[in-house]
């Protein structure tokens, strides 16, 4: 039997958790997650968190700023892994908290919770580096297939990782999707994870990301009106101020990874929503103990061959 409290403590100290324990965690988590609808209904008070991307120290800061789970209800909007150096710790802590306090912690799927994307953006490499093989990556990416796609808070605030889809006019259409799979780069499921708002257009256009769409204010208006909603909360895009509000306060982007990739010098935020539905963006800066640029370069070059090259280029 797993002692989740003890496990949570060990993860917070960045101890390496054994593969067999991770396999068990994933198995248990699937049983919980499979019961969740594609659109989870949540209530205020709640704190909404955007992209974390393996910045584990900043995740621990978030729990200090927003209050520890379960005393604060949390909704995470996805993108737990890739880029930062502690993606494994980040996702494991969140899964443990989900198992320990299932009603207090909701985890949405982001576009980075995908096999293809994690092979490109660092999570796969981190797993292989820490465990010597890809088994942990396989367990966790299989678990990602079970993460839900969206949430609605107090029946009025629609929450998703990316944005809207030309295939989805009603939230009901999300409910009937089969989410338990790796999603391709096309189709409504992909769109929810990949799309971005674009103030320069009114309708839909294909996204420069190569997946999902860009969508304008008219699309947001239609969606909110058809579904009797007030606001869309999403993440997915870097915000230098930690958050961005668009379209006359009809859509917000929340970004929760400060000093992204340890070099972007951006702020981050978490969104605290009270029972009267008032929204407060709690903005914060990077946690101490960030890797230095020197450490990052050293880490990147750790397997380099020692060729001495004349300085012919810039």
């Amino acid at each position, binding site marked *: 039997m797993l002692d989740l409290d003890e496990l949570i403590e060990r993860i917070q100290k960045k101890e390496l958790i054994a593969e067999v324990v991770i396999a068990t965690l994933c198995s248990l988590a699937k049983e919980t997650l499979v019961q969740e609808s594609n659109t989870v209904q949540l209530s205020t008070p709640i704190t909404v968190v955007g992209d974390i991307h393996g910045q584990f120290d900043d995740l621990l800061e978030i729990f200090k700023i927003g209050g520890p789970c379960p005393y604060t209800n949390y909704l995470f909007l996805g993108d737990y892994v890739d880029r930062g150096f502690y993606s494994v710790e980040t996702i494991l802590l969140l899964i443990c908290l989900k198992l320990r306090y299932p009603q207090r912690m909701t985890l949405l799927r982001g576009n980075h919770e995908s096999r*293809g994307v994690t092979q490109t*953006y660092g999570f796969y490499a981190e797993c292989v580096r820490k465990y010597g093989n890809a088994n942990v990556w396989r367990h966790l990416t299989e678990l990602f297939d079970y993460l839900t796609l969206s949430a609605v808070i107090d029946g009025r605030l629609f929450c998703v990782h990316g944005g809207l889809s030309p295939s989805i006019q009603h939230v009901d259409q999300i409910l009937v999707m089969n989410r338990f799979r790796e999603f391709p780069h096309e189709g409504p499921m992909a769109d929810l994870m990949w799309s971005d708002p674009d103030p320069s257009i009114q309708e839909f256009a294909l996204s420069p990301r190569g997946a999902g769409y860009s969508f304008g204010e008219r699309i947001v208006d239609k969606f909110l009106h058809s579904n009797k909603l007030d606001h869309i909360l999403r993440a997915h895009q870097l915000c230098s101020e930690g958050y961005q509000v668009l379209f006359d306060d009809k859509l917000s982007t929340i970004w929760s990874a400060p000093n992204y990739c340890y070099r972007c010098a951006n702020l981050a935020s978490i969104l605290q929503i009270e029972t009267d539905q008032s929204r407060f963006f709690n903005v914060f800066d990077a946690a101490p103990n960030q890797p230095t640029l020197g450490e990052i370069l050293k880490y990147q070059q750790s397997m380099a061959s020692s060729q001495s090259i004349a300085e012919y280029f810039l």
Partner: protein
Amino acid sequence: MPHSNLTPEPTDTRRQSFGMASVSEFLAQCPPPTNLPSNKWQDIPIRFLFDKDVAIVDPDTPIEEASALLIDNDLSSIPIRAAKGSDDIARVFDYSDLTAFLLLVLHIDDAKEATDAYRKLSQEVQNGTPITAYQVAELGKNKDPFMTVPATSTLGDLAEILATGIRRVAVVDENRKILSIASQRQLIRFLWTNVRAFPALEPLMSRTIHSLDIGSSDFICINGDKKVISAFRQMHETGIGSLAVVDSQYRLLGNISLVDVKYVTRSSSIYLLNRTCGHFLSVIKSEQGIRAGKDSAPAFNVYESSTFAFTMAKVVATQCHRLWLVQSPSCPPSPKSSNSHLMPGSNAGLKVNQLLGMISLTDMIYVILAQTKGTLPQPTARIGRRGSTSSGRSHSKVSMDSSYRR
């Protein structure tokens, strides 16, 4: 049972690339442009493509300066004047030259590199003599010839040239002064942005990749475990500008192009040449994602069921130079079923995301031209191996290592 390429046209609207009821509904979102002189795209004057100033350098420009200009301004190539103040262009400096130079500097000895120019340049590099872009601009292989067209040309004239595989031409006035560069990308962007002004193109827009038989199997793959240096060597030796990076089952991981040499030209990043192509893809994508503030998909691809409109839209939105044709997912497996992350494709033996072909800008322009001339074959059930559509193309590729070629 023999594998067949016969896939039925999709009737399920959820599978259609735009996810809307029809392509024309998507196109109808925007009003047609009203500022164009003709509703026949081929008659539009070429000046409608002009966008930015042309960067041209003098022949004594150092290689470092020319490289910086190329990379920092996101250019594809830089014409080099024959002499200071002259309007004549002697050579064009591009990424194939930069790559060749990098290999030279690293003393990647190739017995095949027998040209005098190469050996002489190699010697000068070793002596520490400053090198000019002009000297380097003849190292790249299989470069497009530098072509000019008069400013009186139409888009139709331009398309005839670009459909043969030439990537860009210089538009010159009557004194042979360069006014602008006109490229495949610019043409496709113009046509897509203004597609509603050209009703003759609309039937083409809803045709699928499958029915058009567009694209070719004429490309090189490299396994993600191979070293980056061998990717650049391969591109240099074959003169082909881009490699598909695949896993052991030919599933597409991403692509590496000559343009990506810019990630290894700083001496602090030279170590990347010794890493794997898979790792290099991470570096490229991560860097791009941070700059844009948004991460992009690992590879830009389309399916056989994708419409031509979707294909054009994707090329324009992502600003890519080619789209990869991959095996699309079949119906998803039932929940909580197999723990294999592979989903069986609808075609026997093919796996999801397996690489099937490549669609270049040349292919797309060729199809648009064929549609306009009325020479495009009607949609029929296609049986047999996927083949190259552009039989009219004269730009043939060098044969390559068969262990990688698909």
